[in-house]
């Protein structure tokens, strides 16, 4: 089925990252082309997510909610093919989020100061733009999140 088990601290979540990645790759050029602001990044330099390796459980918990609540719903485009891919990715995130909730009920996702600071930085980056631009930029950086999620 292409599902893979990814570890985030105490939580081991099964998900089909390749399917999400394939959906994203299909729309990446279109979405990134809509993001003309190259001086600000949500998850990349200078606060690159891939350099962050503590409290993975806390970070992924917050980022799943971030993408579901603050990104996907603000990413409507004029292209129905792109919209279908976005909703397919959003549905995958919703199912991962549900699995996370189940794990979270049994285990405590530690949120240390660093992780809280990291998430605040992401929100700060997001807050520098209007909602549509910030959401489109965040969606265009989904590969950064997927790379980080797959890091062992």
């Amino acid at each position, binding site marked *: 089925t292409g599902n893979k088990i990814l570890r985030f601290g105490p939580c081991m979540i099964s998900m089909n990252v390749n399917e999400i990645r394939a959906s994203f790759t299909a729309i990446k050029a279109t979405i990134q082309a809509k993001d003309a602001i190259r*001086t600000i990044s949500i998850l990349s330099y200078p606060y690159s997510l891939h350099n962050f390796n503590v409290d993975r459980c806390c970070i992924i918990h917050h980022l799943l909610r971030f993408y579901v609540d603050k990104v996907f719903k603000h990413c409507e485009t004029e292209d129905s093919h792109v919209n279908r891919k976005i909703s397919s990715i959003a549905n995958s995130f919703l199912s991962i989020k549900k699995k996370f909730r189940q794990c979270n009920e049994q285990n405590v996702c530690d949120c240390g100061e660093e992780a809280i600071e990291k998430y605040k930085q992401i929100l700060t980056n997001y807050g520098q733009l209007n909602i549509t631009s910030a959401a489109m930029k965040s969606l265009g950086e989904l*590969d950064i999140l997927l*790379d980080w999620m797959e890091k062992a």
Partner: protein
Amino acid sequence: PERSPLLKHAAFSSTNFENIFKWESEAETPPDTVYEVQYKRYGDEDWLQKSECQNITQPFCNLTHETENFRERYYARVRAVVQNCCSSEWVCSQRFYPREDTTIGKPEVKHIPSVRSIKFFIQPLYTPLRDEDGSQLTVEDIYSRFGTIDYHMTLFSQKTHQEWEKNENNKEFEVSDLNPNTEYNVTIYLKHLEKRSQPRVFCVRTLPDNTWL
């Protein structure tokens, strides 16, 4: 009056992490047109000048070392300048992510045929990048940090229409139980997660069986 030429298709062309920024200009470009190239890391404030690519006439610029952090994303842009006239708009590349966007070139393969088997030795695929200690990095060095690397091989005999398919994670392997004095078409490529290298395609003939002479 003269006007600045239009530029198009500004994009990175990358193989084994050698990252070349290329562009095209429309047919009627004034002869004294030169180009200026800038680049930046995605998320950085400022565009940086690529000093060797200021006032150049060729339609490409090597940005390998400016984009060597294969975990980051980059942009490059170019404009045309016509002496004593004007300059074009900046034309920007797509977001460039070396780790995903580079093409993995054909692997180099040495082979030693015997009567009923062939040994294959896959050579390292070198990149222009160097490790902290200065050693040259191979494509395998880089991608093995993110997941496994396999070598996929198919071997096909025109004469018998037999086909072998092998997935190896070793750079040296042998295919046995072949027919003597037979030509085989071989295709080998490197596989990493969803990424594949260009295929190396060649023929190799097993040795004749002289034991009965």
